[in-house]
């Protein structure tokens, strides 16, 4: 019995040491998440003198990837790449000619960031991510045969808290607490310049608490 305890003890110590190692200098981090949503609707008059039909659909997808390196214990430097595509298409046919309206929006954002970790225990850690973000946004609008293209940019600063939970020593689930985030952005798009400051929820597919799959890979010694 005593032997068993003695055998287990170093094992327990090893496990405890290993968990903290994920936040030690030299660990590489990868993260990925994706959101998508869309809808389609169709209306058609079934009888009567005035016939019309109305078809519309929209599709959106927003993948995000990030990578980082532990530059010091509990401190990470990394890059986050976010993109978004929203496609809208509407066709309306009434008594007059066919009306066709297309509106496609695209964005690509790159953000270098610094993350500070505070580990709670071997499974859980809190982090505070602060970064600058630059985005390139472009759109294509088509009203019947008239095509209009726009492009612009957004620059901003943000602070975002979050939680990491390690399912295994190498794999974790992370949640951004968007509810407690702060962001300031300057946008120059579509002939208008906008400055926004957001505390809390920002609109988008992943609202409130976004969830991300994360990998923490230690340097093999």
């Amino acid at each position, binding site marked *: 019995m005593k032997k068993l305890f003695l055998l287990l003890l170093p094992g327990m110590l090893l496990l405890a040491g290993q968990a903290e190692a994920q936040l030690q200098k030299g660990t590489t981090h990868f993260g990925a998440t994706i959101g998508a949503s869309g809808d389609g609707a169709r*209306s058609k008059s079934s009888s009567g003198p005035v016939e019309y039909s109305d078809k519309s659909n929209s599709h959106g997808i927003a993948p995000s990837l990030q990578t980082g390196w532990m530059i010091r214990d509990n401190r990470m430097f990394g890059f986050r790449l976010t993109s978004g595509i929203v496609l809208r298409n509407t066709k309306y046919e009434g008594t007059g000619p066919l009306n066709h309206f297309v509106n496609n929006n695209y964005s690509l954002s790159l953000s270098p960031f610094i993350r500070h970790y505070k580990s709670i225990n071997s499974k859980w850690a809190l982090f505070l991510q602060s970064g600058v973000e630059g985005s390139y946004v472009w759109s294509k609008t088509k009203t019947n045969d008239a095509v209009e293209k726009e492009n612009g940019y957004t620059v901003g600063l943000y602070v975002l808290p979050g939680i990491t939970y390690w399912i295994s020593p190498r794999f974790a689930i992370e949640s951004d607490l968007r509810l407690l985030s702060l962001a300031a952005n300057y946008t120059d798009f579509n002939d208008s310049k906008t400055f926004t400051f957001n505390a809390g929820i920002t609109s988008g597919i992943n609202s*409130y608490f976004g969830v991300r799959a994360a990998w923490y890979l230690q340097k093999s010694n």
Partner: protein
Amino acid sequence: MKNTATYILVLIIVSVSTAFGQLEGKRFISGNAGVGFSNQNSEYNRSSTGYSYNVSLGLGKFKTSTKTGEWLIVSSLIGGKQNYDLPNESVNWNGITSFSLGTGYAWNFYKHFSDKFGIFGGPGLSLVYSFGKSLTNPGSIYYETKSNQVSFNLQLGAGAYYVLSERWWLTGSLAFSNPVYLSYKFGKSKPFDPGPNVDNSGFEYKLAPDFTFPSVGLGLRYFFKD
């Protein structure tokens, strides 16, 4: 040392098994319900009333002491007496404006903190049919639109329980997430003024790895006799 360690080990195993061991194989029925009534009397309009309910019933079993599988039936209804003043006429509706009925299956994993209290969470699948009646105004014409919708959901839920007695548990759901959602909708719109009827159909999908605000719902669970 050896005896003490053995004794402690035996004590731990015994206490754990007495507290939760008897859960395995136990069957239960669980439910939560909400009802609502409203009444409005206005000096200028006719009175309007409203009523609603939402019910969820589950039939489950502890597969092990920390895992349950549960079949669910969910239903909701909204109805009442409503008045609308349209440009050419006034419309009075009396009856059901929305109704839903669905079924699902949920897996829950438990962490028992003591023999009185614990938490649980897990994924679930559900298929829901809903009917709705509404007044729509897409242009200058007012329509009475009826719709039928079938939706498929993948949900994540979490909750906590408190043991009231040997047979009764009080449960509360604490968080909710709906990462996958698919629906198909079809129906008809009938204009109030002379004009053609309109056939409608549509679909919706969502993949959203996120959590919404914790929604709190209280329910009761009754354990059957073996």
